[in-house]
Every structure is written in structure tokens, then in C-alpha cells.
């Protein structure tokens, strides 16, 4: 496989599509998704449950169910430490395994269940080390202790012997992060790492991730449905709906002036921390994300969209349009919507 040019990016996903086999035929969960993430950069992947954001990340990790149950199309180009660039969707499983947990690490939403309940946390971290480094158990445990200390767990030596159920949720997520950092990954995929945590703990974890990113220069793909978190941590943001990217761009413009009605809806659903703007009514988007087996014709968001235009939105599938400042949006009426939104 030739080494395609991916500029400075660690990960360059091109036209990724994911389809699952069901008894009624293949169901596409992710459609034609492309994005890049550079070292030291944090890309936020935003969407409601079922929007395809987790599937996208799992596809990059190749942790979706194996073929023929899942069909992966497109490319996910990844630059390794040694500078080689490979397509993660095409490398053999063995090579992929060597990357997982080593150069690409992942942490998950539920720290309660993401740790093996019957294995001591020290061993779980050490296992990650030993899988990719030629070290013995003792060395690996030393490294685990070091990692635990680094993610801010006090009394790390003693904690090595703890079982997950001895630890609080925040502690467990720290353990997960320590495990992910075991081999100094170039890319960390964090799948809703703070969703299950208390608000105060959330903030600590986000801070920790940012600190670690500064230290190591790793790229982070941060998956969340919480736009408040996005504003805090991300450099760029990518919004997904029904398996497609519907809007993406620098975090500032997107958060300030979202072009896609869906993003707007999401933002309205976030309680604002700043009250200076006065009272902003908290609203939720009516309806739910359509099932991938029953996508509406035209724009997938059309049935829930306040700006939907009958005869247009329910007939034509919108493309991903370039708007200003590198911001992209998938809406047939984005300029009209922008105008309407801009009105007081």
C-alpha cells in the first residue's frame, strides 16, 4: 500500500461508510464521513445517540463487529510514530492490533463497566503495557504506578492492587485514561468520557485530558453529545446526524453561529453558564433521531427541522456545502436559515 500524503494530520478519514448486516439487508450507520485531526489538536464529534459518532470512532479502531457483519468503506489514514502512513481500514488485523492501545488509544463512556471487574487495576494497566512493550510484569506494574500518579491518583502504589469496584467513577475514568496512555499514543479517541460522571468530576477529567495533551502532544478525537463540553476542550467540531456530518468547522464560529438548524437546536438544549446574555429559554429538539433502517427521504433532519421547506427538504438530499471560514454545513437552506437566525 502506497503512503498517501496526509499533510500534518495524524488521522485522515476519507469517505468512511459503515454498514451493518441485518436480516432485512445492510443498514448504513455512517455515510461518507471525512475528517482529519492533527497532532496536539482536539476534534469534537458531536451528535445525539444513534447519530453514528460512536460507530465512526469504533470503525477507526476497527472495533466494529468483523465482516461480514459490518462493511467498512473509505479510508482512515494514520501516521505512525515511525512516519509511515497506513490505511487503518485496510491493514491486516495483526498490524491493527499492534496499533490499538499503542499508537491509538481509546477511552469509553462508562468507567463503571469498561474495566474488567475481577482484575486488579494495576494488572489491567500493566497488561496494556506488556502487550506492546517487551517488559516483564514488574516493570509493567512500575509503569502502571507511574501512569496512575500521572492521571492524578494519589497513593498509586496501593491503588494498583485495587479492584475497579473499590474506586469511584472519576477514579475509574482516571484509570481508563492511565491505561490509554500506557504506550504514549499519538491519537486518543475519547468516547463520551465524562458523560457518566458528576459535573465537578467532569471538569477534572477534562482538565486532566487537556494537561496530558499539552504534555504529550497527542491528538484527541472527543466524542460527546454535550456542546458545553465541546466549547471547553475542542479546537474543531464536527456535528453528526443520522450517520452523516451535518456541520463542521472551528469551534469558535460553529459554537457562536451554527449554520445547521440541528446544531442550533443542540445549542439551545445546553444550559448556558454565562447569564450575561439574559434569559435564554432552554428548548429541546422535538422528535428523535430516525432509525438508520427508516431514514426519511431528503434531508434526514427534515421531520424535526423548524425551517424545513416542504417540497424541497423532503425531496432532495442536501450535500455538505462549504460556508465561510472553512465551515461546512449540510443544509439546503443554510443561508436562508442564517438570515432568519440572525434576526433578533
Amino acid at each position, binding site marked *: 500500500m502506497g503512503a498517501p500524503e496526509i499533510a500534518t494530520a495524524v488521522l485522515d478519514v476519507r469517505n468512511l461508510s459503515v454498514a451493518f448486516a441485518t436480516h432485512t439487508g445492510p443498514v448504513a450507520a455512517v455515510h461518507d464521513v471525512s475528517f482529519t485531526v492533527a497532532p496536539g489538536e482536539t476534534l469534537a464529534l458531536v451528535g445525539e445517540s444513534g447519530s453514528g459518532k460512536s460507530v465512526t470512532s469504533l470503525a477507526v*479502531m476497527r*472495533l466494529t463487529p468483523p465482516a461480514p457483519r459490518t462493511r467498512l468503506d473509505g479510508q482512515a489514514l494514520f501516521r505512525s510514530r515511525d512516519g509511515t502512513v497506513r490505511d487503518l481500514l485496510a491493514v491486516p488485523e495483526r498490524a491493527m*492490533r*499492534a*496499533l*490499538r*492501545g*499503542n499508537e491509538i*488509544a*481509546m477511552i*469509553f463512556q*462508562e468507567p463503571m*463497566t*469498561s*474495566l*474488567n*471487574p*475481577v*482484575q486488579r487495576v494495576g494488572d489491567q494497566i500493566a*497488561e*496494556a503495557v506488556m*502487550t*506492546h512493550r517487551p517488559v516483564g510484569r514488574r516493570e509493567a506494574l512500575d509503569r502502571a504506578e507511574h501512569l496512575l500518579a500521572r492521571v492524578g491518583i494519589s497513593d498509586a502504589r496501593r491503588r494498583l492492587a485495587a*479492584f475497579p*469496584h473499590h474506586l469511584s467513577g472519576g477514579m475509574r475514568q482516571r484509570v*481508563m485514561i492511565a*491505561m*490509554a496512555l*500506557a504506550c504514549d499514543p499519538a491519537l486518543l479517541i475519547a468516547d463520551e468520557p465524562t458523560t457518566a460522571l458528576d459535573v465537578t468530576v467532569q471538569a477534572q477529567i477534562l482538565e486532566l485530558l487537556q494537561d496530558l495533551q499539552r504534555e504529550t502532544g497527542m491528538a484527541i478525537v472527543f466524542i460527546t453529545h454535550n456542546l458545553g463540553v465541546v466549547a471547553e476542550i475542542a479546537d474543531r467540531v464536527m456535528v453528526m446526524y443520522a450517520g452523516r456530518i451535518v456541520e463542521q468547522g472551528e469551534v469558535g464560529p460553529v459554537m457562536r453561529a451554527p449554520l445547521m438548524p440541528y446544531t442550533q437546536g443542540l445549542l439551545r438544549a445546553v444550559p448556558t453558564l454565562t447569564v450575561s446574555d439574559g434569559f435564554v429559554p432552554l428548548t429541546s429538539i422535538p422528535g428523535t433521531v430516525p432509525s438508520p433502517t427508516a431514514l426519511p427521504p431528503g434531508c434526514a433532519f427534515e421531520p424535526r427541522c423548524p425551517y424545513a421547506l416542504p417540497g424541497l427538504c423532503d425531496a432532495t438530499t442536501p450535500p455538505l456545502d462549504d460556508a465561510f471560514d472553512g465551515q461546512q454545513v449540510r443544509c439546503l437552506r443554510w443561508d436562508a436559515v442564517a438570515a432568519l437566525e440572525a434576526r433578533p
Partner: protein
Amino acid sequence: MASFLLNRLIQSVILLALVSVIGFAVLHLAPGGPLSQFALIPGMTQEQLAHIAHEMGLDRPLPLQYWEWVSRLVTGDWGHSYRDNQPVLAIISGRLPATFELMLTAIALAVLLGVTVGVLGAVRRGSIFDSLATVGAMVALSIPTFWFGLIVIYIFAVKLGWLPAGSRSTVGDGSFSDYFRHLIAPAVVLALVEVAIWSRYMRGAMLDVISQDFIRTARAKGLSEKSVMLRHAFRNALLPMIELAGLELPTLLGGALVTETVFTWPGMGRLFLDSLGYRDYPVVMGILMVSAVLVLIGSLFADILSAAADPRIRL
């Protein structure tokens, strides 16, 4: 731990008391009695039968008989068989080794085979192997054990002559290979249902575990599928199996009864049938109590072992 044990002990005593009342009532309230075996002896008179009934204590009120039986039971005197006058406990303990031999072999077979099949089925979920194992297990669960036993005897003992038709050993042989040859067929027959149960449970437990988040974590670490399955999935899936071993004991005992009958295996199950035929109440009650105790000990052990194997459980 101590309070757990005490609690369990109290519960067990209550359970055993219930078991004994139910068993005693069922046996003694039903028509027929141990005297009918003597009734047909020529010259047996009603007076003599009444005399025997009196000597056996069968003519006293039932609650009194129960009370006497229980109060002797707790002192370790389980009474004497009506048939051969041997102490019940001695009779039963004489039969237990044979039953244990059969049960342990069967359970070992069942655990080995069942766990393997279950794990493979879960790992290759939806494969042809998995489908075959699923259907096979369901059929195995539906085959009447005694019928399967008869068919095995017909094929392997009668037609092919490879295995003995029954019994635990050839009298006067006593070599290991002789015991082993006798053990094969009944152990396999008894294990059939258990293999099916274990493979289904194991498959289910594996699937449960495989769908859990920490398996994804393990994969994300870059572990090979084999390590993921063995080190993470399998270990966790084994935990509920310990409980199963405890829960399956009554089924296994019941299966042993039928298997022992078909293969004329001199164990507790056949003793039960024989004693039932003769209305040998003390022995029948003794067996019911022993099996209840075994079941209770089994579930207690299962709980303790579970606690030992699973750091989340504290007794």
C-alpha cells in the same frame, strides 16, 4: 463470613425441617405400606402382620412417629431399614461412593465439554458450529435419559459388545480398566443433559460478557482475540458457572437415579427406587434428607466459591 455462615445454617435447618415434613407426610399418608411385602408369605396371618406393624412402630399416630424419627435423626440415629435392618446411614453411605463416582465423572465430562462447546459457540456466534451446538443442546435436553441409556446399551453392549451392559465392575476383577469400562456408558448418558445445560449456560454467559464494555476496552488495548476471550471474557463468564454447579445438583441427582436404574449401577438412586418399591420408609426418608443436604451443601459451596473467585462478592 461468620454471620453469613450462621445465617445460612439457620436457613438450611429450616429448609431441612420443611423437607423432612413434606417427605414424611407424602410417604406415610399414601396408601400401601412396608408390610405388603410380607403379606403374601403363605401362612402370614393378620395377627402376625399386626404384631410386625407394632414392632416397627407403624401403628402409632403419625405426628408421634415423625417426632420420634426426627429426635433420633438429630442424634445421628437415622433408624434401621425395614428390609435388612441395617442402619440407614450405613446403607446410604455404602451407596454414595458409586453415585459420586458416576456424578463426578459426568460433571467433569459435562464441564469440560459443555464449557468448551459453549465458549466456542459464543466466540463463533452464528456460525454453523454454533447453530449445530444450539440445536444439539436443545435436542439433548429433550431426549429422555432412560431411552438414551437403552439405546446406548443396545448399540454398544448388545450389538457391538464394546462395553458392559451395566453394573459398576466385574465381580472379582477390580482392576482400574474394568471399573473404567463400566463407567463409560452411564457417565456419558448422565453427562448428556449436563453437557447441554453447561454449554447453553456457558454460551449465554460468554455472550453476556462479550457484549460488556470491558471486553471492548481489552480489545482497544490491542490484545489478541485469544487473550481477550481467555483472559477477560472466559474468566468472567466462569463466575456464574460456579453458581450453576450448585444449582444443577438436584438435576444431576435426579439424572443419576434414572441412569443408575438403566445401567444397574449400585448407587443411591437405585437404592431409592428399590426402597420405594418395598416402602422402606427409613431408607427413603434418609435418601431424601441426604440429597437435600447435598443440595444445600452444594449451593453453600457454590456461594463460597463464587465469593472467593469474584472480588465483588463479600460474604
